[in-house]
């Protein structure tokens, strides 16, 4: 029985409301920029929340010809842009070893715009006019499918869905695929394009969205702040290239960071509310740390789920205290969502890329818009802006509707 292989990250690509590309996004996050604005992608005049994090200058034809772009929903287009960047970054030549490269890209909501468009065709013009591409454009595994078709990756291939934790679970599943020897490299992450009329209406109906700051979008996403009133829906994609250390070294690729842990749990409590004291999230973090073989005190940074809903931020804070005890106050925690909003299934992918950059540069971005302290959220959320740190390990949390909790652990790379 061979040893469990070490897994490293050798590339990353992101498309977010603060930038297209990893470097653009990272610099914007360090500068504390805002990616939230009035919704332009769909009609929201009669919806309670009218703001979102849109990738405003995304032109799919930068990556795809017009015909292919028309046959892909936006969530797939975003994933392709992120995957292209990640592959270029890693220098991985997929076609030279197609069968050894897999692809797991999580999407929470799939091609919902395609579905809405085809509903309109169906109601207005009848069933005979519905597109033959409805099903293959809508189903949520199509990001993983199309990225494989584009890149030639013929290895393990699925989509993991766990609502807002989908991207994190995709990375977790890819990590485990490499550790059990089922592939040598994995293209993995998350994508979602949920800024659509139906999705805005439905999230607003569930009372999860910020509705009080339509006139001041820049200050609407305020994780851990006393004035937070819900999350801001956003879109984007984040894709990482994971590979075994041996494989990366053999091809002369530079390991950016090491991925060392993954934990996953269910609250088994309520469909939309976190379990008492955030115990489900705490179990996911403990499981991830145990798998990494480290103590809570080894963790130097937490990229929080931090959605800016009253419930999430309070319960996530509790769960961090449960796991880290007295040390919790000393660990810097920041929420990328304070700047880009909540990209649903993409969040885990984007935030893993951000966590990777944090370890690489020993710098963390701040939590924007945290001005009014909330007594229930009394940890160090890096509210003053970016900070230089010294750390070996960082974790990224993702917590989803349905009570899904995921935690990823990354380590600064040392041979």
């Amino acid at each position, binding site marked *: 029985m061979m040893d469990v292989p070490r897994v490293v990250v050798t590339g990353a690509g992101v498309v977010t409301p603060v930038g297209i590309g990893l470097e653009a996004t990272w610099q914007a996050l360090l500068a504390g920029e805002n990616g939230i604005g009035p919704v332009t992608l769909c009609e929201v005049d009669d919806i309670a929340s009218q703001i979102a994090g849109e990738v405003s200058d995304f032109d799919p034809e930068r990556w795809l010809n017009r015909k292919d772009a028309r046959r892909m929903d936006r969530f797939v287009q975003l994933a392709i842009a992120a995957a292209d960047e990640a592959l270029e970054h890693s220098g991985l030549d997929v076609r030279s070893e197609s069968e050894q490269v897999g692809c797991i890209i999580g999407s929470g909501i799939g091609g919902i715009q395609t579905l809405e468009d085809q509903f309109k065709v169906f109601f207005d013009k009848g069933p005979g006019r519905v597109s033959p591409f409805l099903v293959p454009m809508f189903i949520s595994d199509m990001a*993983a499918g199309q990225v*494989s078709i584009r890149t030639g*990756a013929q290895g393990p*291939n699925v989509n993991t869905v766990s609502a807002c934790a989908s991207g994190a*679970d995709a990375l977790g599943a890819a990590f485990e695929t490499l550790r059990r020897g089922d592939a040598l490299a994995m293209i993995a992450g998350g994508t979602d394009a949920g800024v659509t009329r139906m999705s805005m209406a439905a999230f607003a109906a569930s009372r999860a969205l910020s509705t009080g700051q339509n006139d001041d979008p820049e200050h609407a996403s305020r994780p851990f702040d006393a004035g937070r009133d819900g999350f801001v829906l956003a879109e984007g994609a984040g894709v990482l290239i994971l590979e075994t250390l041996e494989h990366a070294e053999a091809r002369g690729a530079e390991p950016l960071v090491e991925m060392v842990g993954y934990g996953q749990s*269910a609250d088994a409590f309520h469909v939309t509310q976190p379990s008492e004291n955030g115990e489900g999230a705490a179990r996911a973090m403990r499981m991830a740390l145990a798998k990494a073989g480290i103590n809570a005190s080894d963790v130097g940074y937490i990229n929080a789920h931090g959605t800016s809903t009253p419930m999430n931020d309070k319960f996530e804070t509790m769960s961090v205290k449960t796991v880290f005890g007295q040390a919790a106050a000393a660990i810097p925690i920041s929420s990328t969502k304070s700047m880009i909003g909540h990209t649903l299934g993409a969040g885990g992918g984007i935030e893993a890329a951000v966590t990777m950059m944090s370890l690489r540069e020993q710098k963390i971005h701040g939590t924007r818009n945290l001005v009014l302290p909330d007594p229930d959220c009394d940890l160090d959320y890096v509210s003053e802006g970016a900070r230089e740190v010294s750390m070996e390990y960082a974790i990224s949390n993702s917590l989803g509707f*349905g*009570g899904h909790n995921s935690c990823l652990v990354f380590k600064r790379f040392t041979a």
Partner: protein
Amino acid sequence: MPLEVVVTGLGLMTPVGNNVSSAWENLVAGRSGIGTISQFDTSAYEYPIAGEVKNFEPSNFIEPKLLRRIDRSTQFAIAACQEAVADAGVEVNSERPGAVGVLLGTGMGGAHLMIEQQRILDEKGPRRVSPFLISHFLPDTATGLVAIALGAHGPNFAVTAACATGGAAVGEAAETIARGDAEVMITGGFEAPLTPIYYAGFFAMKALATHEDPTQAVRPFDADRNGFILGEGAGALVLESLEHAQARGAKIYARYCGGATSNDAGDMVAAAEDGHGIAEAMRRALVRGEVRTDQISYINAHGTSTPLNDRVETTAFHNVFREDADRLMVSSTKSMHGHMMGAAGAVEAAIAVLTCHHQVVPPTINYTTPDPDCDLDYVPNVARDAKIEHAMSTSVGLGGHNSALIFGRWEGN
């Protein structure tokens, strides 16, 4: 070392029966569950044929308040999981917290709920949209609800891989146990695709079968096959580490040997003509399970009854099994229950488990005219008693997704 995994519980909700015993009885008898669609107005179609679940009483499984909020697909999932958990006799609440996880797959999620809410949005405006839509439409809804109902606090997410979803979910759940992240996983797949809009989308793809007699519409591997037929339902399996199952004295149906997924990396809709993608999944599953081709006795094929699929799959069987291919028994139970989309891989995995358990192979029905491109033993029309050491289940999906699973006979009971 990966831990050994066994199957200790099964649940089925299918067009051929609403539980394991009735579905198995009908499959072995070669009875079709395909008929004319009753769920929506089909006057626009000449041959509105599908595999519907009959006499489904969701209130037998789900309390009224929850029932009002959830999609038909989720209802199937809950019903099948309840049967599987009861069959396994697992007391979830007495297990260590986190020891039991749930991992279910669905291709499309809450289709019925979405169409109903889209109509409300268009006719009455966004403020009338249900607050429960998002949390009950996403593909992971059922995994969350099953976990809540049972108190299963372990790993919990959904897997989607188009028509290979169910197989991919079962494989991922087995790996979760094999690596020690859970001791018991409730897994499977579910789908309720019979809504007017999805049906219109599939119809537009020109892939649906036509036949005067609905029960003869699905004819996998037959020369006169002309398309697939949508089916609905769910399949659930309780997987467990061998150690855990033996410690509690559980009955064991079969061993889980290995599984894999792959992608053709070819076309978005059509499977590659040489079948390299599904062949790759089968080879990986054989390696993972440390099973040789001559040890596989039976394959429950994807066998959709489209001209392309059945030919491609047959080519792949030849390429993987070579001289062992002629000895294989291959059947498509879709000939009886239709193509249950995201549920298919799980339902067919359960059937593969049952073939190992009962040592009986259900037939491919409606097989009358051999196709020179499909030249294997498809167990035509009549079930067969046979010695089954290992059974494989294959699934092939839109987007190039493939999965393969292998189960082995359990002789220890």
